[in-house]
């Protein structure tokens, strides 16, 4: 008996996509241009998303989440990102980079205290890994955590932290033993109202302006010993494992942005008349649209493949990297074409494609640059 490979979503997945699509169109999209222009954190939208459990999607219900699979998360991320990339950035950080490691590595007490309110969206989280000198070289952590009595004392500086200025909780990575390299890094749960913590510079960015990007400063910031996440020295492993999941979220975000670019391009090319006919009748435009559509479909399927492997509990480092690489570069190509199709109108702020173009670029950079993704993929291919 042969079996047919199914590219079909389950009833639940279809309903989740439909609900999030309606929510995104009615509640998220109308604010997108404004929060981008004002670089304003969309608090009101996040409160609504919290009510629907969109901020802790994959966390089981007993810990305050929705208990849905990664495929559903991908579908929801695509819809939110299509409406507003900034909002989807905030969403993916809380889901993938904060709730996920707490669920996987947290103790029961840590889950009750931190995961439950984070999954419910009552608290917002951020992920403190990048430092001024630890970007792609994430193991080069200069932030230190020193055990004094029953407290960890944190010192150092994190930068480019998404949600940093609005977060209540940080999953923080710091060196606990400089002599041990990778194995000397540990993960911590830090409440961001702890004395010794302050918010440093808030960055002005090219895109995703509605999400904040801040540096976090720790000066003798003292946290309880039990706020170590996972085992001592396992921080690098936690960070990399978390990013395997996070990259699926970014891939989905990139697909969402690319789909928005395609949708606007189709609409515009049918309306815009030059030489007496809509520009959609010109092959030059049709070929761009065809390439955009094809690449988006590829990126979408790669992302679903990685999500499906994660749902099966199978190692998905390579597939996540491929999905993130291809989807982010697809988003960049698709938004570039969208601006080109719009011509001069694509370059001004009266049309949304210039925002898509600016928003797309970050997907090739954060949670591992395209170069890092290629490195990860090549490592697997050459094994």
């Amino acid at each position, binding site marked *: 008996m042969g079996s047919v490979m199914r590219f079909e979503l389950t*009833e*639940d997945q*279809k*309903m*989740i996509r*439909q*609900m999030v699509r*309606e*929510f995104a169109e009615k509640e998220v999209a109308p604010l997108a241009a404004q929060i981008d222009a004002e670089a304003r954190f969309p608090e009101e939208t996040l409160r609504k998303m919290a*009510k*629907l*459990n*969109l901020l802790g*999607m994959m966390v089981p*219900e007993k810990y305050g989440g*929705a*208990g*849905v699979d990664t495929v*559903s998360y991908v579908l929801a991320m695509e819809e939110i990102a299509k409406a507003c990339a900034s909002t989807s950035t905030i969403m993916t950080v809380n889901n993938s980079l904060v709730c996920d490691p707490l669920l996987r590595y947290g103790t029961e007490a840590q889950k009750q205290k931190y995961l439950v309110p984070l999954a419910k969206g009552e608290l917002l989280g951020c992920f403190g890994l990048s430092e001024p000198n630890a970007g792609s070289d994430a193991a080069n952590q200069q932030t230190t955590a020193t055990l004094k009595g029953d407290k960890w004392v944190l010192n150092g500086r994190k930068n480019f932290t998404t949600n940093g200025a609005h977060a209540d909780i940080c999953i923080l990575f710091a060196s606990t033993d400089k002599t041990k390299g990778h194995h000397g890094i540990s993960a911590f749960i830090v409440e961001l109202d702890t004395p010794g913590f302050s918010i440093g510079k808030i960055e002005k960015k090219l895109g995703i302006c509605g999400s904040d990007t801040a540096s976090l400063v720790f000066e003798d910031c003292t946290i309880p010993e039990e706020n170590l996440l996972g085992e001592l020295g396992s921080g690098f492993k936690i960070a990399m494992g978390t990013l395997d999941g996070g990259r699926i979220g970014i891939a989905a975000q990139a697909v969402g942005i690319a789909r928005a670019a395609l949708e606007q391009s189709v609409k515009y090319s049918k309306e815009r008349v030059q030489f007496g006919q809509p520009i959609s009748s010109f092959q030059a435009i049709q070929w761009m649209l065809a390439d955009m559509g094809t690449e988006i479909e590829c990126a979408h399927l790669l992302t679903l493949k990685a999500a499906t492997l994660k749902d099966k509990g199978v190692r998905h480092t390579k597939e996540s990297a491929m999905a993130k690489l291809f989807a982010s570069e697809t988003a960049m190509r698709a938004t570039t074409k969208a601006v080109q199709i719009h011509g001069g109108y694509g370059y001004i702020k009266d049309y949304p494609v210039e925002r898509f173009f600016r928003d797309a670029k970050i997907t090739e950079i954060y949670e591992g640059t395209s170069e890092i993704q290629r490195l990860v993929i090549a490592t697997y291919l050459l094994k």
Partner: protein
Amino acid sequence: MAQCGDDPTDRPCDRGQWTTDHGPTMNIIVCVKQVPDTATKVRIGKDGRHIDPEGVKFIVNTYDDFAVEEAIRLKERFGGEVTVISMGPERVKEALRMCLAMGADKAIQLWDPAFEDSDPYTTALILSKAIQQLPYDLIFCGKQAIDRDTTSVPSYLAEMLRLPQATVVVKLEVDPVAKKFIAYRDIEGAKEVLEGPLPAVISTQWKLNEPRYPTLPNIMKAKKKELKELNAGALGLDPTMVGEKGSRVRVLGMELPPPRSKGKILKGDPKEVARELVRLLREEAKVI
């Protein structure tokens, strides 16, 4: 249970079995219709009498969302059960599950090949037969379906069930103990307030409430809720009474609206242009 005659129009029947005798809990029925999404580009099918369902995205009728929301709010306030009912083929299950995800408790799909091409009269007849098998204190319908816009099913339904009705309601107060409702309707330049006994049929207008989005956990729970299917036999309906055969109205054909003709641009001295515009509006467009 309420018992009505085979022909719902020939004699009155009682007003359904009361379920609030033991306290203020309500059994609420919501009739919903699955319709093409307004964003869908509608094409006319080959027979020229139906829309081509190929590639059409179907949604819960917009006005029915207000009905479902109002029913769930009343249930949350007074306790009880919300049952959603829809007549239509297999695909209407999707619409029913969406209502279950919003918070309805049970769903019933009414379908039989004999129901094909039902007009509003036979649709209401089919719905009334299903409703007569259930306990009910209140019946909600959207004020109209956004596909055919006939607005007639709620009124037919109320007549067939011999129930009071309030249509196009923008605000509703329900007293399950005193068994009465007060419904507010917007009428030209004023507000009309109706009071009546329960059970009643209420049709809902968009100002009534703000329908909720189903939460993710409720979407996951929706598939575990009861979704029953009833056919003509189960409803005690003679196939000749329903569908196209039983219908009062037959759709002869469908046409897309003609493409908009080219606009007219008036140029010249503003005074003359204004005079010409008034003349055209009066003599050509005949709108003033």
